[in-house]
């Protein structure tokens, strides 16, 4: 992580270096975008949600407590909540469309990119892609990733292992 501007809290006994929002946004933007890209499996949606995530973070910046976790974890939580809201809204929209416009085109497959790896990733569930993003790309440790996901560390580890195994198998099939 690059050096960031630091301000400090004035609360006695909680003297923790507090980075500036713009510095955090600059350094974590790519990570959050990758996480959302993996989670949603859609570039356009991921871009929208990334912007939305940082807007929410901007509004909630006063509540960020560096003593309780890194900015990356905090942003990932906001991003996850934003993505889940998006999924709920999408589900409601799909239900409405199914009810009133029968025969409408089905929801498309995730669009992560043209390569074999992207294609394999697209076949994973969002939950599997999410754990891969958090552990492999964002390099969060097991317990931290588990806290973000709201599951136990064991479940997180199992889910990661299963996702990577599936990816490996699909890659192997693609090569063959």
């Amino acid at each position, binding site marked *: 992580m690059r050096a960031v501007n630091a301000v400090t809290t004035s609360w006695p006994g909680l003297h923790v270096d507090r980075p500036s929002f713009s510095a955090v946004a600059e350094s974590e933007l790519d990570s959050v975008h990758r996480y959302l890209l993996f989670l949603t499996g859609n570039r356009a949606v991921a871009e929208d949600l990334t912007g939305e995530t*940082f807007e929410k973070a901007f509004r909630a910046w006063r509540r960020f407590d560096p003593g309780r976790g890194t900015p990356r974890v905090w942003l990932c939580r906001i991003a996850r909540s934003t993505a889940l809201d998006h999924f709920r809204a999408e589900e409601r929209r799909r239900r409405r469309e199914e009810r009133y416009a029968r025969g409408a085109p089905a929801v498309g497959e995730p669009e992560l990119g043209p390569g074999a790896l992207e294609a394999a990733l697209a076949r994973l569930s969002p939950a599997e892609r999410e754990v891969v993003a958090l552990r*492999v790309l964002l390099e969060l440790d097991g317990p931290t990733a588990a806290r973000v996901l709201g599951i136990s560390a064991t479940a997180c580890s199992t889910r990661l292992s299963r996702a990577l195994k599936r990816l490996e198998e699909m890659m192997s099939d693609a090569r063959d």
Partner: protein
Amino acid sequence: MPATETIDFEREFADVVRELRALPAAAPTGVRERVRALGEPAARRSLPRLPWRRSLLVLAPVCVLGLVVAAVVHGVLNSAPKRQALSLSRGTNHEGAAGGATLTNPGQNVWGPVAGPAPSRSLVPPAAGRHQNYDAWMRLRVKDLDALTQRTNEAMQVVRSYGGYVASVNQSTTAGAPGEADLVVRVPVAHVEDALVRLASLGTVLDRRLSIVDLEQTLRQQRQHILRLRLFIARATEQLRQPLPADVRLRLQLQLQQARADLSQATRANAGTLREAALSRISLTLTTQHATAPVKKGGTGRFERAARDAGSFLAGAGAVILFLLIVLSPFVVLAVAALLGRRAYRRREERRLLASA
């Protein structure tokens, strides 16, 4: 991060991991510009918001401390000696329909501090315009046997000076034993207040009590009884002037005789009640004996009183808190259950969304 775990998945799926990390990482320029445009939020307040768990950690001791301070202040304030005599308003103790109001409070009284200086005029005076039975008891300490005799005489003089009289005097001055003089005096109610003040000044007040019994209702009943009897006598006398059968006449004469006797008795009782109301009764005891020290309830020093008061205050506060806990606990349980249920529902919904999205 546990090193072994990282090595495990990075070794086991090394190729996949390498390829995943090699995927393009940069966010598009449009998103970057959108985020940069946000700028910097307004400066954080000087006092940051504490998370609720930490707030509880701060608030709980502060509340306990506040409660303890309040208890100490309450204890200290209540332990201060009470300089004001117990004040009783004039009307309150004289209006009872049953006609009774007895102020009996040994050790604390209506005139002022016990074993203190001569009382001021803070006693409950008789109510003007009402008939009351006004009884007072007073125990005074005098210096020695000579003073006992002298003060007894002075007391009798005081009573007479107000138009009263001494109903009985009993003085015992055995050598080697504390001397004592018991006086029962009657003083006109109109002067009882002054008389009591002067009598109390004869020595150091050790004990005093006051009883006021309203006689208005008794008098009213007596008057009504007298009136009924007079009416009956008048009617019976009138009937006896008429020609009547012998047996009826005889019965009426007997009834008339009985009514006259009852009327005489009722009139006497009424006069007695009025006399009782006109004169107050004061029982005065003069003694050379020192006042018995009041029984200490675990020590009555100011510090101990303050500690006891503070303890009672804390106990009261504890009882209130316990009551609130008991009353609110079902709601708290319901709220917690609702919260847990909502959380479980959201988790399940999240799992479903992430499995199918």
